[in-house]
């Protein structure tokens, strides 16, 4: 066919240009292809990662904490399911209606739910937003039944701490709280996330790494708006390890009961291992309140109570040991050869030293006093004179040999070391030289001397076992969920006093007399079935000049008592302090007696009285020591 209409003058040029355009098109497509090659082949791996991180999110699932048991496997702290109501914003159809329904079903204020809702609004739409926590099982079931009216509502179960015995041993066990910002930045909590609960005090804090367990998590897929689509993968959480304490639940109960609502502390310890059997600081608090939101009125009450319920007095309370320290002074005297069991001094009721007069608690005087009598009746003059001859440094030497003046390493945080003064110490502490007159009160555990209840228990245990200091400890072992023992805390000897056996014999005879002989100050801790030895003490809080009548509570003396039993073959040592209890013999010794009774009842040495009437009768007979003789001392 002939082209008639061809008016293109340069036909070849047209053809050439078509080829030119084709080459141009090729080039452009080659450029596109190269770029696709670069993205889809060369950079593919990196971009695949980016697309994965676009869509996948990790939601941690907290592991249930390990349980805390007593030495016999009785549960002290475990977990219990706590039900909370969460809304998942992406699934809510009618917000206002839902808030109305929830408020009605849960008997809550509408405002409260609204506030929580608004607070959590910044988070992803798939993220459950808790609007009410700690609902009862009945409420939970009611909500389940009314699911249809509650679209977008999720009932979540999460394990929370359950304290089997309420506030029992609260200072020892500790409480939980949300990990703080500072803690998150520290090495110790490097692996934790904001919102995690951690132990904030006591065993919960110190054994956190064992108790916490391994958190699991769910990898979920979300869309571009962050809405949950499905769970991609799940890693299970594994429960924390079980911590078995050295505490004996029954003794702990008895000790707490014995202290009652008095402020103070009691520590009972196994003489031959250092295991702590009871560890009481009174008054206590309710650890469960710390896990959720602490009611402000209770918090205020805790803070304002002059008996300081939040303070762990057994570990951190530093008290002048008072006459319980005479044990150390006596030992120092015997060891240094300044006295023997027959050495007597005359007590006229006071001792003049320079211009000062140091009084014995018994102003009438004890007359002729030997070692045994000095302990039994707690004669102050005897120890003033002995201390004067010893000098403060020699007293300190023996005090320190018994573990006083430094923390014992019980394993909890902020353990206090107390103070055992020396000449050097005073120079360093106050920049002043020691005056001989200051030595005299040290001899009776006053002056600068400060000890903690744990130290006193350890001290008397060392007397009882005649020279071995065991590290006081609270945890027997850590066991994982399969029952495998991860840590066994065997008795650990941290010191030997290395004294003459006779020294112990003479001192212990004196301590036996304190409890069991007429005029002994510690008669109220006597048991009929077991021989108890002990020493009373009362320590001045402030110096009062012969004040008569009612002394305000906070100025009253602290009452102390240390004891061990059985006398022949000691097993248990006890230290009791009653803050502002005034007299060791009347306030602290009976408490010690009750704890000892619980111990020997548990061992089957003392029969548990079954009928209630019998208990009273026996208790009446037991509280033998007549306060007329010696339950009072200075």
């Amino acid at each position, binding site marked *: 066919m002939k082209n008639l209409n061809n*008016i293109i003058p340069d036909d070849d040029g047209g053809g050439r240009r078509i080829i030119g355009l084709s080459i141009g098109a090729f080039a452009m497509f080659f450029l596109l292809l190269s770029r696709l090659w670069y993205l889809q082949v060369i950079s593919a791996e990196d971009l695949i990662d980016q*697309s994965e991180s*676009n869509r996948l999110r990790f939601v941690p699932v907290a592991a249930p904490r390990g349980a805390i048991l007593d030495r016999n496997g009785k549960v002290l702290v475990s977990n219990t399911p706590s039900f909370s109501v969460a809304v998942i914003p992406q699934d809510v159809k009618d917000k206002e209606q839902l808030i109305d329904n929830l408020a009605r079903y849960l008997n809550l204020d509408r405002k409260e739910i609204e506030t929580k809702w608004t607070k959590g609004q910044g988070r992803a739409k798939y993220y459950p937003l808790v609007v009410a926590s700690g609902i009862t099982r009945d409420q939970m079931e009611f909500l389940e039944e009314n699911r249809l009216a509650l679209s977008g509502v999720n009932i979540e179960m999460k394990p929370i701490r359950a304290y089997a015995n309420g506030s029992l041993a609260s200072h020892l066990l500790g409480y939980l709280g949300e990990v703080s910002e500072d803690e998150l930045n520290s090495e110790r909590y490097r692996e934790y996330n904001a919102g995690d609960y951690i132990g904030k005090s006591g065993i919960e804090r110190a054994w956190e790494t064992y108790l916490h367990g391994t958190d699991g998590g769910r990898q979920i*897929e979300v869309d*571009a708006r962050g809405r949950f689509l499905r769970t991609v993968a799940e890693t299970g959480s594994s429960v924390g390890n079980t911590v078995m304490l050295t505490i004996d639940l029954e003794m702990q109960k008895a000790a707490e009961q014995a202290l009652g609502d008095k402020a103070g502390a009691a520590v009972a310890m196994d003489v031959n291992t250092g295991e702590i059997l009871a560890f009481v600081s009174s008054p206590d608090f309710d650890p469960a309140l710390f896990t959720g939101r602490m009611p402000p009125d209770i918090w205020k009450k805790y803070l304002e109570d002059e008996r300081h319920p939040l303070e762990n007095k057994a570990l951190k309370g530093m008290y002048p040991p008072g006459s319980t320290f005479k044990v150390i002074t006596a030992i120092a005297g015997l060891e240094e050869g300044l006295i023997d069991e027959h050495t007597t001094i005359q007590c006229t009721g006071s001792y003049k030293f320079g211009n000062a007069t140091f009084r014995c608690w018994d102003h009438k005087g004890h007359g002729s006093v030997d070692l045994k009598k000095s302990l039994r009746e707690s004669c102050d003059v005897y120890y003033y004179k002995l201390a004067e001859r010893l000098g403060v440094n020699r007293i300190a030497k023996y005090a320190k040999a018994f573990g006083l003046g430094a923390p014992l390493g019980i394993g909890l945080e902020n353990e206090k070391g107390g103070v055992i003064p020396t000449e050097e110490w005073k120079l360093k502490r106050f920049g002043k030289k020691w005056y001989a007159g200051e030595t005299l009160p040290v001899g009776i555990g006053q002056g600068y001397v400060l000890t903690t209840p744990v130290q006193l228990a350890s001290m008397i245990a060392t007397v009882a076992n005649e020279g071995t200091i065991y590290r006081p400890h609270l945890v027997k072992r850590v066991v994982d969920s399969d029952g495998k023992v991860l840590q066994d805390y065997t008795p650990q000897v941290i010191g030997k006093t290395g004294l003459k056996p006779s020294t112990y014999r003479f001192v212990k005879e004196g301590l036996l007399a304190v409890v069991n002989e007429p005029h002994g100050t510690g008669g109220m801790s006597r048991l009929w079935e077991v021989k108890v030895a002990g020493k009373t003490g009362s320590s001045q809080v402030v110096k009062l000049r012969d004040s008569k009548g009612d002394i305000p509570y906070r100025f009253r003396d602290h009452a102390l008592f240390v004891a061990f039993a059985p006398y022949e073959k000691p097993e248990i040592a006890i230290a009791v302090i009653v803050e502002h209890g005034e007299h060791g013999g009347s306030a602290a010794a009976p408490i010690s007696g009750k704890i000892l009774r619980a111990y020997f009842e548990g061992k089957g040495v003392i029969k548990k009285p079954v009928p209630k009437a019998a208990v009273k009768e026996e208790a009446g007979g037991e509280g033998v020591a007549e306060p007329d003789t010696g339950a009072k001392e200075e």
Partner: protein
Amino acid sequence: MFDRRLFTNFDWTLLGVVLLITVFGVINIYSASSSYRDIGTPYYLKQLYWIVAGLLLSLTVCSLDYHMLEDFAYWLYGGVVVLLLLVLVAGKTTMGATRWISFGFFNMQPSEPMKIVIIMTFARFFSRYPVFKGLTLKELVYPLLLLGVPAALIMKQPDLGTAILVSLIAGTMLLFVGVRWSALGTLFAAAVPVVVVAWEFLLHDYQKKRVYNFLNPDLDPLGSGYHIIQSKIAVGSGATLGKGFMQGTQSQLRFLPEQHTDFAFSVFAEEWGFIGCLLMLALYLFLILWGLGIAKRCNDRFGSLLAVGVTAMLFWHIVINMGMVIGLMPVVGVPLPFFSYGGTSMVTSMVGVGILLNISMRRFMF
């Protein structure tokens, strides 16, 4: 008028390639929109309707001899320019741009037909214009005026993408006609100050922002850089073999923007990988070369010019869209012909195909 030869000479290959692309397009739209809430007719079905409508239109266009267009070209040009003026005066404003005029029952976007009309106008202009050793600068004055008026009006809407496309189509036709090197050099030299002035005074902030974001998407990864970043991730994470049909996480979870329209190819690249992209590029390249072949085989100058113009229109849509999706070009709202969801684009492209079919089957007519 209906010759049997028309039927025997019908360009089945061209239609076949186009239909193949539309089929991939529909399948891809099905996947891209599967995560949308279903309200009314699903997108893939609507796209099918548009394909059918487009085909009918295309066949109508090819049933009438394209030489008739030569007579109407200027009238159509005048008419569309008037409509573009009308848009500026009484247009409908959506999303900050005034591109539509409403005829009550029917809205139209006159910048879209301008793409076809500029082709006809240039073809008409140069079919009667003897060119010897390429156009001189002086000879370029009228054609550039013909282009400049509608291009400026479209840019004023503002619709930078269409303005550029119209210019690129016209420019390609000029190259086909032939431009002298001296004229080209002068034009480029003149273009520099024009671009500077346009950047300073004519471009809107959002348009400048797109260019900035193209140059560095990480400036604003959640804002205007988002499109480029997410699209690159989608394309790249498809890797060699793709994530599989309906399995693209970027698209199914809607990290991609406008994934059934301008970014449809991104969805395809994610789900079908480099292999799939290679196939699509091959189909498009074939389409372009075939269109140029029609221009070459055509025996009259008007037809050749028309074919080159239509092919240029398809080519520039393809290159700009793909370039945008894979991060070679800034984000401009240009759909991928036969592939992206949308009636307007489908109609324009199908009319173009109708013109190509028309020229192709009448090449032996004279």
